[in-house]
């Protein structure tokens, strides 16, 4: 008996009613570093602190007073700190049944308590997670065959099925028929292999309404690696899908409209080309007839024409020639519109000097011109077209300064709204700024044909070319004191490639 008591994993002891030890086992002696002889006859107050001893004594007294067995946790000071023990205490009775002492067995449950605490915390955590998940997501759990075993409130709410209607069914209940069978098969192959499946799924609620979910299915695996259940966590993305669909639809509509417009534009462009061709071909032929036969009249019937008759034939010829020029200019103008532009670096200074060489000694402009050409930066554009711009602007300046002695033409550049702007300034007749918006319109002229020749296409062509390059063109005039024409060209990001 003593051997069992001594070798017990529990602390075993007996005290009389005044708290004096009658018996302690081996473990007691080891834990509290006393031998049995020292302990017997002493009370807890001799061995423990007053506080601890009070606690032990309190339980002992309640056991003795009620003559009963109690089972309670007690805090016991050991070398490594306080331990929790579960103590079972009962009374020792004499032959008449009266208690003469208290007998106790105390088991150290500190580790158990720690495990319990960890477990409790884990459970709390899991429960918190579950709460959060249920609040935010649609959750369903199925067995390995896909039979629904659990749904949360969100699932019921979005599917409009009650919990009872869902449990025991599989997900075919809410199948929208939207997804191809292969998608569903892929899903099953993935999760049956223990892998997580993610995807967007369209479902149908009980009332026939469709809803979209972002779906994550997590297989829970047995030790063998085979899934025993699947947890599906879903987020309602119906609204986003709707927005997506609308966006997609709008995009398609827009694309369709752009395509339609492109086709319309293309056909308009073709029509325009055909028109230009027929204009040039069919309008020129009769003009040639008029001119030719008028000339024949002059040549062969000259003697029969008096001076008035000769004046009239000459007017016919001049008017016809002018019409021919108009047609040619108009064609050049329409050609420019459909011409592809090839962007290159343009050596503006060199180009302007060449043009001045070509135009200045022209037989029709014998007047003296004082040229002031400032250094000009390299521009970026279609060489041929930019040249046309300079030719037209410089010709204009020469033409309208023709009556000045000396005529002065200045060419330079400045920065204007982030673009390089070039200008051609003359001291010619100028124009009223009131009409400056009309300058660049086709066939618009600010001067009478008798004063200055021209078809009214030159500046319109300049405007067309410059705006094709993404630049701007404008003019300022001062009647009697000259005009300044400017055009700006955007700087190119690819500029360096061409230097």
């Amino acid at each position, binding site marked *: 008996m003593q051997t069992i008591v001594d070798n017990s994993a529990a602390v075993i002891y007996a005290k009389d009613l005044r708290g004096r030890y009658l018996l302690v086992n081996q473990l007691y002696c080891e834990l509290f570093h006393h031998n049995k002889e020292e302990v017997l006859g002493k009370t807890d107050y001799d061995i423990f602190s007053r506080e601890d001893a009070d606690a032990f004594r309190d339980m002992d007294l309640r056991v003795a007073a009620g003559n009963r067995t109690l089972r309670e946790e007690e805090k016991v000071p050991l070398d490594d700190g306080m331990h929790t023990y579960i103590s079972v205490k009962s009374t020792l009775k004499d032959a008449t049944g009266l208690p003469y002492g208290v007998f106790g067995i105390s088991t150290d449950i500190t580790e158990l308590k720690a495990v319990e605490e960890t477990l409790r915390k884990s459970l709390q955590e899991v429960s918190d997670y579950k709460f959060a998940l249920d609040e935010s997501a649609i959750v369903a759990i199925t067995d390995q065959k896909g039979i629904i075993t659990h749904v949360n409130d969100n699932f019921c709410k979005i599917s409009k099925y009650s919990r009872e209607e869902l449990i025991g069914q599989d997900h075919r209940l809410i199948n929208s028929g939207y997804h191809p069978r292969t998608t569903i098969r892929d899903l099953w192959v993935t999760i049956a292999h223990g892998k997580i499946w993610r995807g967007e799924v369209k479902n149908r609620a009980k009332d026939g309404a469709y809803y979209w979910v972002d779906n994550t299915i997590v297989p829970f695996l047995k030790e063998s690696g085979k899934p025993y259940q699947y947890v599906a966590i879903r987020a309602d993305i119906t609204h986003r899908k709707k927005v997506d669909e609308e966006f997609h639809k709008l995009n398609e509509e827009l694309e369709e409209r752009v395509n339609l417009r492109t086709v319309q534009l293309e056909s308009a462009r073709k029509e325009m080309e055909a028109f230009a061709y027929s204009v040039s071909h069919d309008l*020129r*032929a009769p003009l040639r007839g008029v001119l030719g036969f008028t*000339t*024949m009249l002059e040549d062969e019937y000259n003697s029969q024409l008096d001076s008035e008759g000769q004046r009239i034939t000459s007017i016919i010829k001049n008017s016809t020639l002018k019409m021919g020029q108009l047609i040619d200019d108009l064609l050049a103008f329409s050609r420019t519109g459909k011409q592809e532009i090839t962007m290159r670096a343009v050596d503006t200074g060199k180009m302007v000097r060449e043009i001045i060489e070509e135009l200045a000694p022209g037989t029709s402009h014998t007047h003296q011109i004082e040229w002031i050409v400032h250094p000009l930066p390299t521009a970026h554009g279609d060489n041929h077209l930019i040249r046309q711009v300079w030719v037209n602007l410089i010709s204009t300046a020469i033409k309208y300064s023709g009556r000045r002695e000396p005529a002065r033409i200045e060419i330079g550049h400045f920065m204007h709204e982030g673009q390089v702007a070039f200008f051609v300034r003359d001291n010619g007749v100028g124009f009223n700024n009131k009409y400056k918006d009309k300058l660049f319109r086709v066939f618009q002229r600010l001067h009478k044909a008798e004063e200055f020749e021209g078809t009214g296409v030159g500046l319109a062509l300049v405007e067309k070319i410059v705006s094709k390059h993404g630049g701007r063109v404008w003019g300022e005039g001062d009647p009697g004191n000259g005009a300044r024409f400017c055009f700006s060209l955007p700087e190119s990001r690819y500029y360096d490639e061409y230097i």
Partner: protein
Amino acid sequence: MKQDPVDILLVEDNALDAELTLRELKKHHLANHLVHLKDGEEALEFLFANGATHSLPKLVLLDIQMPKVSGIEVLEQIRSHELTSTTPVVVLTSSKEDPDIRRCYDLGVNSYIVKPVNFERFTEAIRTLGMYWLLINQPPT
């Protein structure tokens, strides 16, 4: 069999242009052996009919825009027949906008002239090309 000589074959449907052209050529004695036809069909008939009683032209002046058979088709036929494959052909048109310029050169046209509206330049062009092809140019023999 003695064949009538033909210097120039003028194929031109526009009567006014034809008259202006003829007048200028006559003025410089280049139209003594000139045949004027008014469309492509007549031209093909003239060039390729059996039992022709005339020689092949030294120069064909061909308008492009013609009813029935266009100048392009006539040019194509001329180049594909062995007899006429080297005959000088000058195409005349009213417009440099003509989408067929490139096609004419591909088919082997000898020259392509845009008829100027200006009468002086027109007559100059006709005179120059008549003199060049009849007097200066040496055709293959």
